[in-house]
């Protein structure tokens, strides 16, 4: 068990430091904080021009939660798929380390980073835009953001696992990030989307978390959005299971067909 925890925490942290391309401050700040800042400002002004909502809160909450994807989608994809890119996948899979600890451990630093990015997004909304949540709503909002970032991170695990075999994992990560913007009710309410789009959105991470966060930011108690939070947590568990299953499947297939490190 001690060994499992060591691989989970220490291994996760070391792999994050080694594989996350944007960890240096001169890349981290423009990419992980600068881009989300302007994303929130962009959509808030677009919402004002479109006359969709009275205040910026709808766009600030939606985008501040979604920007955790900068860490969760890109970071998690790098944390898994970069092993192949950097030529370290073979030695990793030849080691006797517990695969579940190896796989899930990579999500912990990514999750923590996602929370930082999301919290920064809310701060931007508070300081620069018309977003003034009640201080009493903050603990519930923090809990919802944690759950939503977790589900987004497990979604990133699925993408990362695909990256073990796919050639262009950055393409997939970018595409996923943009599709989350469209399908998850980040800027357009699900009720305004066609039925098939909102149905897809309900199967993705973020959607239920964003809905819950909006209600809590508007003053609803946590108990009132319990169903949404549990659904988001269920989605997180489902993606984590799918990601691990894919990871093992692709590992086995890559060994069988001897394409572990090939491009």
């Amino acid at each position: 068990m001690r060994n499992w925890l060591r691989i989970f925490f220490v291994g996760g942290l070391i792999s994050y430091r080694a594989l996350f391309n944007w960890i240096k401050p001169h890349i981290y700040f423009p990419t992980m904080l600068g881009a989300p800042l302007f994303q929130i400002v962009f959509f808030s002004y677009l919402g004002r021009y479109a006359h969709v909502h009275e205040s910026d809160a709808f766009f600030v909450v939606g985008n501040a939660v979604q920007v955790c994807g900068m860490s969760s989608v890109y970071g998690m994809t790098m944390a898994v798929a970069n092993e192949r890119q950097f030529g370290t996948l073979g030695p990793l899979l030849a080691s006797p380390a517990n695969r579940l600890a190896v796989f899930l451990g990579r999500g912990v630093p990514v999750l923590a980073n996602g929370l930082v990015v999301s919290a920064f997004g809310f701060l931007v909304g508070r300081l620069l835009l018309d977003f003034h949540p009640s201080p009493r709503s903050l603990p519930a909002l923090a809990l919802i953001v944690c759950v939503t970032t977790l589900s987004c991170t497990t979604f990133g695990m699925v993408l990362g696992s695909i990256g073990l075999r796919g050639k262009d994992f950055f393409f997939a990560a970018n595409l996923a990030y943009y599709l989350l913007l469209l399908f998850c009710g980040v800027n357009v309410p699900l009720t305004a989307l066609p039925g098939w789009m909102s149905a897809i959105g309900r199967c993705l991470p973020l959607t239920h978390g964003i809905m819950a966060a909006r209600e809590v930011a508007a003053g609803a108690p946590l108990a009132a959005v319990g169903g949404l939070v549990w659904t988001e947590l269920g989605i997180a568990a489902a993606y984590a299971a799918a990601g691990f299953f894919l990871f093992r499947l692709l590992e086995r297939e890559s060994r069988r067909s001897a394409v572990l490190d090939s491009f």
Partner: protein
Amino acid sequence: VNGSTVNGSIVNRGYLIRYARIVWMGLVFRVREFTVSRWFVLMAVIQPVIFATIAFYLFKSGGRTGTLLYAALGAAMMGIWSSTLFGSGGALQWNRWQGTLELLVAAPPPFIVILLPLTLATSVTGGYALIATLFWGRVFFGVPLHFAHPWAFAVAVPAGVLALGLLGLLMASSFILYRQANALSNLLEYPVWVATGLLFPIALLPGWVEPISWLLAPTWGIQALRHAALGSGAVWFPIAMCAVTGAAYLALATVFLRVFERAARANATLSLT
């Protein structure tokens, strides 16, 4: 004296023709290269369509259906900017990674003649965004494609694309000493979308943003496209401003490239990643 002048002009004309040929062949080569790149397809086709869709639904929700063509053109210019930003911003870095930067710099023609088609190709490839968003808007959202000044629109498109390509040249020349151009590119995408009024008017923003927007080619490019398509203002002034800003970018890029290229050679850092 007369004879040498004549010879000199013949020699100069020979150089000009040769450089023009390098630019044209380089442009064709790079556009072909980018057209099959999944990254450029994402930037120039998929991403603008996604942003156009978000804008269409937002404007529909807000009861601003008359602005759908406005949104389609804005999303197209967003795609052209993204393609130029990431393509031109990363141009030198890609060549550095591939080990071809030193060869390009050491080639007999001036480096700017080699770099120009590369950056122009990024904005030309971004031009696919215009086709993609107009097609998407027409087919799925019934956006009417009735242009108020079709001939002016036909001039505005290449003027905007050329101005953005020259802005790309300026960026590429500035990034020659900067190893993390991709981080700067990640940062600059949204601010330019905001500051140049691509999906909402600049008038909504604080007053200090407007003078900044005048220096950016996408401001004039989108104004030219919108005024030509919607008949909402003067067309030729923004087209002329595309030419003016483009010329200014070219002049600045020439100076930057000379200074930075020399510094990179002197410090022997050209190929260092």
